Each structure stands twice: as structure tokens, then as C-alpha cells.
């Protein structure tokens, strides 16, 4: 095995294998030219009169016109959700509530290819990922929480769990349908009704989800989807008829939401940004670790709040890890999200591409060394090649700020203590990775890293049963698992 590797070292892998393209057909997706707001089980034109196109990141093709909700629209949606809560949903036997959620899970499974294609079209993520990660997990999330709906007394014994009322939910553009499922499934399982605002650059799978609700025959008004930009989100947060806010997005906006909610007594959960450390010890299985590094930062173009964007390598294996990493980067296929061979898709929006470019430029200016494997990027659309920075100081912006793109900063350490200190040197605390063959070291690192999710000898794994959420400025509250139910319930203390 070692010999084979040596030989590979001498003859570098060609920068890109030639692959025949294997495009997934987009015919399975039928889009309307224009979408309204989904309120009370009906489509309605926004009273604001505003629409804007949702654009495909891969070629800037306008896919459909989407409504931008104004204050009156948000008000109507919240009122509708309130009525639906009072008019039956909260009194429905919980076993019936469960069955609606099971139905939704099943319909999502049945229509998963259609959703996967649309997710890749609208968001730019590789079809392999939408198909194998986003859709299975979204369906599984509904299936998992469906089972909780009529077992809340067992989850919270002696606390008389009961629904809160209307949940206002705001989701990001990196995992649109998956984040929708993380929000809606526990909210409904707990007996609440929902007003959900998708991200402005990726609203289409949420709008298609309304058709799933129709097929599942979910009572009108229980889930309302209100598209728009940050203005609609702010209206939702401020609305006095909303009892609970759940937000996933940037730390900056999360703080703004906290300020808006201050003094109102509304319940709040925030899942915000991150700048995760991925720590590689010298006894780690390096080939697996390199796969973990690649998956940690280039999965979903690095548009991942828990991305392993700060790599800490123990000095004694630094050269080896870097060589392996660069070689592996050369085999990543960047291109059409609908091509089944694609590893890294398109950047979600022009704004995000500009932000990535700006931070990468700052890294070069501050003195870090940049490496990008040679790769041909498509002419149309928004793209950024997999990027790694070495010679990074902890103070550099690329080591401090969330880039939310395929950009990795590499730092080194000598001792476990130094690794812990550097890894924890951030206002965030969403996730962290650790790679070592030594069991006691894994457990010690898992204890000492201040983050809500620790991946040991793996990275970027998700599951409906596994609580997810951050320490510090990465937010509070957990989504997933039994712990994800509590934020949607009221209790006797």
C-alpha cells in the first residue's frame, strides 16, 4: 500500500480526469412562470405587487418570478396561521397530526428526484448532493418528528408539553428544503402552525413543497409560505401574532433578530455562523483525514455553517497532509450542478461570490499563500475554484471570518493544548473535527473543543435524531433529536 502511494507521489494525478458529462434531466421539474404567496392553502398575489426572478446560479437563467411579501402579506399569513391554530390544528388528536407528517415524509420520498433537480437548479449545488443528502435527510426529518407528535408526554414527563402557537421561521439558501424540514417538522409535531420565509435566492423548492402539502391534505393555514427578502423576515420577527421565532442564517442577522425580539417574551432559537476547526493529529489515518478535510470544506461549495474552514495540522505531518490535500483537490470536478459527476457546483448568488472574492483578496493581501488547482470554470454563471491558504496567521480575516465558500485556511500546531487553544479562539462554536487513532485523545479533544457538534474521524454528518446547534455566537437551541422539540413547546416548570 505504501509503495503504491509513493509511486503516486512521483507522478501527480492529472489535474482533471476527463469525464463524459452525465447530465440529470431537468424535464422532471415543471415550474410556473410566476408564484404568489402560499397562505391558507391558496396561492395569492402579494399586496406589495412586487415580484423578482429566482435565478439559476449555474447560468444565470431566470427560473420563475417569485413574490416579495410586504407587511400586509406577512400580517395576513400570521393571522391565517393563528386561525388555523385555534380552529382545529391544536385540538387535533396528536396521532392524527403524526399521520399528516408521515404523509409528508412519504410524498417527499416519492417525489425526491423532482425536488433534487429543482434544488440543484435553483441553488447551484451538485445533483449528487441534492439527491443523496438533502432529499433523503429532509424526508427522514419529517418521518422522525412524525413519530414524536403523539409521544410528547414521554419526551417531557411531568411537564405537560403543549404547543406555543404560531412559529415564524426564516431559513437560509444553502440547504433550502432541508432547512425547511428542520423547521417545519418539529413545529408541526409539537402542534404549532407555521409561517415560513425561504431565502430570496432559493425559494423554489419551498414553493414546490406547497404541492406536497396539497397532496398530504394538510389542513389549510397550518403551513404558510411567504417568499421575499429581509424586509419580509423582519416583519415576521416583529409581528405580535408570532409566538416563536426560529432562524437559521448569519450571525449578523441573528443578532439583529435578538434585538427585535428583546423585551417581547417571544421564544427564540438561532442557528448562526461558524468557523469550525478541523484538527489533524500526526497519528491520524491521513488518507481518510484528507477525505474529511475535502468533505469538510468543499461540500456544498463551502456554503455550510459548520464547514471545517480552519484546518489545524500537527507540524510533523504538515508537508504530507498538504501534498495529499493538493493532489486530492486536483481531482475535484467543478461544474454543472446537474451533472452527476460534479463534486463542486455553482456559487449560490452573485453577492456571495463577491463576498468570497473579497475575503480571498484580503487573505492574499495579509500575506497568506494561495493555492487553487487548475480547473476550467464555465463561462456563464457564478463559480469559485476550490481554494486553500497556507501561511495563515490566526489574526487574518480568512482565519477569523466566515467565508461561506470553498476556501480553506491551514494553520499548524505542536501539542494538543495548542490545538485546543487555537481551535477555541473564535467567537463562534458550531462544530469541530478531530482526527486521531488514539481513543483517549478523541474523547479529551471532544470534551475540550467548545462547539455544539464534534465530528471525530468523520465530518459533516447529519441525522434527524442528532441534535445540531452552536455555542457562543453560533446561536442557541438545538435542531434535531429529542432536544429539537423543546423549543416548540410550552411546559409547566
Amino acid at each position: 500500500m505504501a509503495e503504491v502511494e509513493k509511486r503516486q507521489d512521483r507522478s501527480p494525478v492529472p489535474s482533471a480526469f476527463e469525464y463524459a458529462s452525465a447530465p440529470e434531466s431537468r424535464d422532471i421539474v415543471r415550474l410556473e412562470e410566476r408564484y404568489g404567496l402560499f397562505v391558507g392553502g391558496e396561492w395569492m398575489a402579494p399586496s406589495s405587487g412586487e415580484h423578482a426572478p429566482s435565478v439559476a446560479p449555474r447560468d444565470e437563467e431566470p427560473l420563475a418570478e417569485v413574490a416579495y411579501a410586504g407587511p400586509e402579506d406577512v400580517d395576513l399569513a400570521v393571522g391565517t396561521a393563528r386561525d388555523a391554530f385555534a380552529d382545529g390544528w391544536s385540538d387535533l388528536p396528536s396521532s392524527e397530526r403524526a399521520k399528516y407528517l408521515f404523509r409528508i415524509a412519504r410524498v417527499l420520498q416519492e417525489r425526491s428526484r423532482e425536488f433534487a433537480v429543482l434544488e440543484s437548479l435553483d441553488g447551484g449545488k451538485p445533483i449528487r448532493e441534492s439527491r443523496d443528502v438533502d432529499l433523503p435527510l429532509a424526508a427522514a426529518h419529517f418521518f422522525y418528528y412524525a413519530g414524536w407528535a403523539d409521544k410528547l408526554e414521554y419526551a417531557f414527563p411531568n411537564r405537560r408539553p403543549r404547543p406555543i402557537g404560531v412559529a415564524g421561521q426564516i431559513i437560509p439558501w444553502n440547504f433550502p428544503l432541508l432547512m425547511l424540514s428542520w423547521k417545519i417538522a418539529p413545529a408541526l409535531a409539537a402542534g404549532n402552525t407555521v409561517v415560513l420565509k425561504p431565502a430570496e435566492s432559493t425559494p423554489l423548492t419551498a414553493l414546490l413543497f406547497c404541492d406536497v402539502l396539497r397532496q398530504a391534505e394538510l389542513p389549510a393555514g397550518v403551513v404558510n409560505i411567504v417568499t421575499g427578502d429581509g424586509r419580509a423576515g423582519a416583519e415576521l420577527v416583529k409581528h405580535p401574532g408570532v409566538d416563536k421565532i426560529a432562524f437559521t442564517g448569519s450571525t449578523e442577522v441573528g443578532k439583529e433578530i435578538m434585538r427585535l425580539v428583546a423585551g417581547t417574551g417571544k421564544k427564540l432559537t438561532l442557528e448562526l455562523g461558524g468557523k469550525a476547526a478541523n484538527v489533524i493529529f500526526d497519528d491520524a489515518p491521513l488518507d481518510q483525514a484528507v477525505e474529511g478535510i475535502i468533505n469538510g470544506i468543499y461540500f456544498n461549495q463551502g456554503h455550510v455553517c459548520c464547514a471545517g474552514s480552519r484546518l489545524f495540522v500537527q507540524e510533523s505531518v504538515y508537508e504530507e497532509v498538504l501534498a495529499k490535500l493538493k493532489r486530492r483537490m486536483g481531482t475535484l470536478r467543478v461544474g454543472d450542478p446537474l451533472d452527476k459527476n460534479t463534486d463542486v457546483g455553482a456559487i449560490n448568488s452573485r453577492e456571495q461570490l463577491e463576498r468570497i472574492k473579497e475575503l480571498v483578496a484580503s487573505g492574499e493581501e495579509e500575506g497568506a499563500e494561495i493555492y487553487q488547482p487548475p480547473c476550467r470554470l464555465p463561462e456563464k454563471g457564478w463559480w469559485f475554484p476550490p481554494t486553500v491558504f497556507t501561511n495563515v496567521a490566526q489574526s487574518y480575516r480568512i482565519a477569523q471570518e466566515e467565508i461561506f465558500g470553498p476556501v480553506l485556511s491551514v494553520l499548524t500546531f505542536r501539542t494538543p493544548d495548542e490545538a485546543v487553544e487555537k481551535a477555541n479562539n473564535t467567537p463562534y462554536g458550531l462544530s469541530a473535527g478531530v482526527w486521531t487513532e488514539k481513543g483517549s485523545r478523541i474523547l479529551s479533544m471532544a470534551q475540550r473543543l467548545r462547539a455544539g457538534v464534534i465530528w471525530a474521524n468523520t465530518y459533516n454528518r447529519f441525522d434527524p435524531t442528532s441534535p445540531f446547534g452552536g455555542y457562543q455566537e453560533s446561536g442557541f437551541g438545538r435542531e434535531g433529536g429529542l432536544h429539537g422539540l423543546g423549543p416548540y413547546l410550552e411546559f409547566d416548570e
Partner: protein
Amino acid sequence: MSRLPVRKTYKLYLGGAFPRSESGRTYEVEGANVALGSRKDVRDAVRAARGAFPKWASMTAYNRGQVLYRVAEMMEGRKAEFAELTGDEAEVDAAVDRWVWYAGWADKLAQVLGSSNPVAGPYFNFTVPEPTGIVGIVAPEEPPLAGLVSRLAPAVVGGNVAVVLASEHRPLAAITLAEVLATSDVPGGVVNVITGRKRELSPVLAGHMDVNALDLAGATDDVAELERLAADNVKRIARNGDGQSLWHAAAFLELKTVWHPIGV
């Protein structure tokens, strides 16, 4: 001629010591000159708390439970003094019993709040509670002793450290409690008690970037403004909490989930 009693000077409790306010200020309350804590005293207390956090958080849960039980023991021995300060012996009994109740929770939190998660893949996956860090406590004005203990005990039982703004109008019980803590094996800096004006000091605590959580049960002024300040570093906020509850402790605990592959 009857004997002239020796009076006590009521000072701050900060990093395990009893300093005067760095400002040199005092205010007259409950028949004593009590330290009128300053913004800098609050910042110093936060620094002391941060220094004490790693050791307190990494102590075994069993050990932490024993230390908190020791607090109850020491309080029991000074019941007469506390009863004189609070004017309510039942309140003192309740405060002692509350320490006992929370002391017993220390090594049970992880079993009740944690979980093993059956993920759909070859991974071992578990969730455990961990302390969030420094909890800023604006203690209730009344009752001066049981009110404070009801907020402090759930904060520290899970491994958090605390900076307390004592009852402004009845601070003496809080300082006497600090004397108990100082003689109860609670490491210095785990609990820090500042006396003074809440209107002046609460915003410093709420806006401090190294405070992780805020307990506003005793906030008397503009709660909304304190919550806005807390947003600057996404503090966890607890708003109320009468009585005793596991959930008061859980409010200041993070949940950490660890994944590891299963294989041969």
C-alpha cells in the same frame, strides 16, 4: 456597661477575596455602608470568573455536587445570622434546602439531559450537556437570600461560573452568602458578588462580550434594553425562575453532540 459589638464591613466578593469597590464608593443600606460597585468592578468580576471557569467546569460532577452540599452545611451553621438579616427563618431554611436539592443534581444532569442518538449509519453518536461559561445574574430584590440562591445554584451546578448583582435594597444576605461560599470549597472566582445600583451595573453585565448568559429574574429596569445589549454576543437569556427546577439549570447548559464512526 454592656459590650460594644464589633461590626462587619460589607464588601464585594471577587475572585475569592473581599475587596472594597475600586471606586471607593459606598451606599448606606440596611444600616450598613455597603460597597457601591462600579463598572470596573463588574469587569474585574468577569475576568475572575473566566479564570475560574476551566477548573470548575472540568471538576467531576460528583465533586461539584459535594462542594455544593458543603455550601448547604456551612449555611446551616450560620442560620441565626441569616435569619437576622432576612427576618425570615423559613426563607433561610428554604435557601439551605435549595442548595441540597441542586447539589444532588450535579451528577444526574447528563443522564437526564443527554442522549444516545440512533443515527441512520455506522456511527456512535451521543449528546451531553456542558456549561455555557459565565452567567451574569441580576438577583431578585426579594427575598434577598432565597431569591439569590434560587438563581445561583442552578447556574453553577452544571459547571458554569457566575457574576451576581445582589439585591440592591437588601444586599447584606448576599455578602454573607459570599462568606459562606468562601469557606465551602467553592473555588475563588466561581461566584462573584457585586453590590450597588442595578441601573448602573446591569447594562455592563448585559453588554459584556465575555459573559455567555444572562439571568434577568431580578432585573428591575428596562429589561428590553438589557436583552438588546445581550444580543451583541448572542447571550443565552433566562427571564424568570421561581422555585426549583431542572430546567432552570438546563437554561445555562449547552448540548454537545459527538460523532464517531463504527468499524473494525
